[in-house]
């Protein structure tokens, strides 16, 4: 069976599912954040695949903006994690329970 758009989309889906599992299972905030990035990358893979399928450049350009926004988001997110670590001394999500009850 020749490789078509379906194969790329299934790969994107599998990567997304692995990222989702990481977000739900891991307790280390940095690992959770990396899993989130993996989900974002899986989505961009889907966009690139559809862009080729529809013979349009728009999907590719959208991926460019997603990469830009992701870079900004990672910088802000990691700064938040550093600030949190300074204040609470931990980056484990099950120890950050001050909003509970």
């Amino acid at each position, binding site marked *: 069976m020749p*490789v078509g758009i379906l194969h790329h989309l299934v790969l994107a889906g599998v990567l997304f*599912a692995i990222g989702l*599992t990481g977000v739900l299972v891991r307790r280390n905030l940095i690992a959770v954040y990396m899993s989130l990035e993996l989900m974002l990358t899986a989505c961009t893979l889907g966009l690139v695949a559809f862009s080729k399928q529809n013979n349009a450049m728009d999907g590719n350009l959208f991926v460019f903006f997603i990469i830009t926004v992701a870079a900004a988001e990672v*910088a802000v997110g990691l700064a938040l994690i550093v600030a949190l670590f300074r204040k609470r001394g931990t980056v484990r999500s099950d120890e950050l329970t001050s909003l509970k009850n």
Partner: protein
Amino acid sequence: MSDCLFYIFAAIAVAAATLMVASRNTVTGALGMIAALVAVAADYFLLDAPFLGVLQVLVYAGAVMVLFLFIIMLLDVDKTSHERRSAAKWVLGAIVLGATVGAITYALTHADLGAAKAAAEAAPATGTEALAAPLPHGTTAKVFGYGLFTKYMLPLQLAGFLLLSAMIGVVTLVRRPKE
């Protein structure tokens, strides 16, 4: 040939992503993440988007992951906290993984993926609608730049502004408060 390459890079991406999620050591996880991102970048090359592949390696696998590794080193998270293994958590993870993969694969194999293309070819845009029409696909950086500086001029400016505000935000967030 390219089919073979796709399967190789897909296997690398899935294996590295699994390593990233499963490893207790955060540095190992970050290295797995880099491998997964490079494999996805290779997939971009196979999908006729070499510029995006290069960008992915430079920005994601390069800058972003170096930032991650830097923060991991700075906070020394593996020494201050240990991930406790619990079987129930991983069983839940496996169930979520299986359900998501199953749902996505089922939806993809039952969807008509050519429908949008057929609709676009049936009614070609004219006049003012042509501005909103899809740009023709190309592989060179020139085609990429043309799209960015014509149809997507405003989003491009906003992206630059977003990067500036993110930079200011980061400096404000990590600055130590004055005594």
